């Protein structure tokens, strides 16, 4: 590295976008190919200004669309470089085809995805529609609930992505505006510690190794496609153990402990919610409040969205009597994905809590602590009754008469 040194304080005041940008800088990324889109623009904007001011050595490539941004990343990754980009919402939707190329070609790419609603109607605020869009794309997907976590997850994404047992691209998610634009105290690692934690990039079958030329993304029909997909799936499933290892190693250098399934108050919880993103932090405050009222509440949040920690979720929920799965994405004609996955996790266990599906917070609508308390109180009714006291799915927080579906 011959770039200029950046002086960092022990505690910096960064929003989630700056946290991402600093993580990219410390990872000494070779190529960032990016196209701006709210609310993730500032990730690459900050990074580009660090580049312009001589703090990073790599290339910043301005492209004409998000499709080209991810294509640039795949090309640079195949050539043998460490690459990253950032996007949101419609940009992610435009990238999605190339997301499948990256994972199928087993190219490590880090994507900082700042979660935002999908149009129409056009909306720049946060929900999980774009996160859900990446569900089957074959990427490892990590979720962070604050700028500190966004910094940590993005750093760790490189180590996970490039791990020899993984060699798959990784998404580092955070909530649009709620995390990306909220400045908070962030404790960064020093450049040296951060870089050594990730390590040098060791390309595998690099396209630009002229002594051993290689073709990426070849054609396989019915004769070999299935086997290649099987190998990809096996690697993705096995990445869970690597994620755990990386979390443990990260704890050693940072003192911050992460779990693939985060939970709070679950030791004695009878009622629980399962959610993603910043809602987890609000729910912790609601749980504390309810415990004082004598309601045994808890909250569970998968830190690892892909590969889905099915067994760990079931274990965390084994003593709950009533559970609400909170999906922050327009449901599209069925129950939310989180509900489906949690129901799937619980179905083969002896614990069969009453399960609700709450669709909430679409397009950036707030989920307040008071609303969360109400949700827990409803769950408490279900737990007392031992059965659902309403329909399975409810759109909570929507204006007008109650909107709910699937009556048993």
């Amino acid at each position, binding site marked *: 590295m011959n770039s200029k040194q950046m002086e960092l304080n022990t505690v910096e005041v960064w929003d989630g976008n700056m946290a991402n940008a600093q993580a990219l800088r410390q990872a000494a990324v070779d190529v960032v190919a990016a196209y701006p889109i709210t609310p993730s623009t500032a990730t690459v904007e900050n990074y580009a200004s660090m580049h312009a001011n001589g703090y990073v050595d790599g290339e910043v490539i301005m492209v004409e669309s998000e499709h080209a941004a991810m294509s640039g990343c795949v090309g640079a990754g195949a050539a043998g470089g460490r690459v990253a980009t950032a996007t949101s919402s419609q940009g992610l939707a435009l990238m999605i085809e190339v997301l499948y190329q990256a994972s*199928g*070609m*087993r*190219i490590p790419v880090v994507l900082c995805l700042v979660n935002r609603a999908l149009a129409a109607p056009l909306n720049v605020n946060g929900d999980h529609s774009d996160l859900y869009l990446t569900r089957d794309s074959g990427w490892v997907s990590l979720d962070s609930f604050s700028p500190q976590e966004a910094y940590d997850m993005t750093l760790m994404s490189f180590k996970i992505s490039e791990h020899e047992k993984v*060699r798959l691209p990784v998404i580092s998610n955070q909530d649009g505006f709620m995390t990306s634009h909220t400045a908070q105290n962030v404790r960064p690692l020093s450049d040296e510690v951060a870089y050594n934690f990730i390590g040098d990039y060791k390309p*595998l*079958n690099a396209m630009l190794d*002229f*002594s*051993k*030329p*290689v*073709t*990426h*993304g*070849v*054609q*396989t*029909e019915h*004769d*070999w496609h*299935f*086997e*290649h997909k*099987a*190998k990809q799936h*096996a*690697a993705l499933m096995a990445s869970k153990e690597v994620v755990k290892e990386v979390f443990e190693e990260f704890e050693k250098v940072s003192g911050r402990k992460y779990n693939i399934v985060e939970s709070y108050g679950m030791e004695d919880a009878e009622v629980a919610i399962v959610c993603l993103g910043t809602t987890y932090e609000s729910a912790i405050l609601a749980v504390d409040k309810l415990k004082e009222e004598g309601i045994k509440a808890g909250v569970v949040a998968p830190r690892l969205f892909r590969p889905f920690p099915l067994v760990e979720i079931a274990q965390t929920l084994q003593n709950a009597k009533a559970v609400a799965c909170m999906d922050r994405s327009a449901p599209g004609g069925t129950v939310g994905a989180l509900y489906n996955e949690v129901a799937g996790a619980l179905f083969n266990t002896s614990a069969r809590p009453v399960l609700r599906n709450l669709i909430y917070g679409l397009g950036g609508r707030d989920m307040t602590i008071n609303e969360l308390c109400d949700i827990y109180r409803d769950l408490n009714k279900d737990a007392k009754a031992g059965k659902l006291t309403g329909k399975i799915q409810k759109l909570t927080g929507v204006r007008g008469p109650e909107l709910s579906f699937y009556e048993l």
Partner: protein
Amino acid sequence: MSKSIKDMGWDELVPGAALFSFEQTVNYNIAEVQPEDRTYAETNSKNAYVGDWRVIKPVWNSEICIDCQNCWIFCPDSSIIARDKEMKGVDYDHCKGCGICVSVCPTNPKSLLMFNETEKNEDALAKWPEKKKKGESNE
């Protein structure tokens, strides 16, 4: 790679379906060496059969061919086999049956014609059309 690719399981494949050009490091004078004399890796596209969506195939008639190399130049899949500027035949492992070679063939009648995939080449050659008179369509 000691095992043939046909005997390999999913767990033995190269991650990301990458194909290597050759078993050894590249000889940069490779253009001088005929493809059949090169050592391709098991997973090289030369060894991967991709002609299986073809429903019609080009059949080559060596009696009429003038070795003009038009078909060799135009084939988008490098499926015309030519050696020392002499036409040798069609590589049916990779030919997709697009018919471009037939449409660029200048002889009368054409030295390449499309036939049903299931038709035997010798049967196809037996029913080769006669030379067309001036003004008649060459198809």
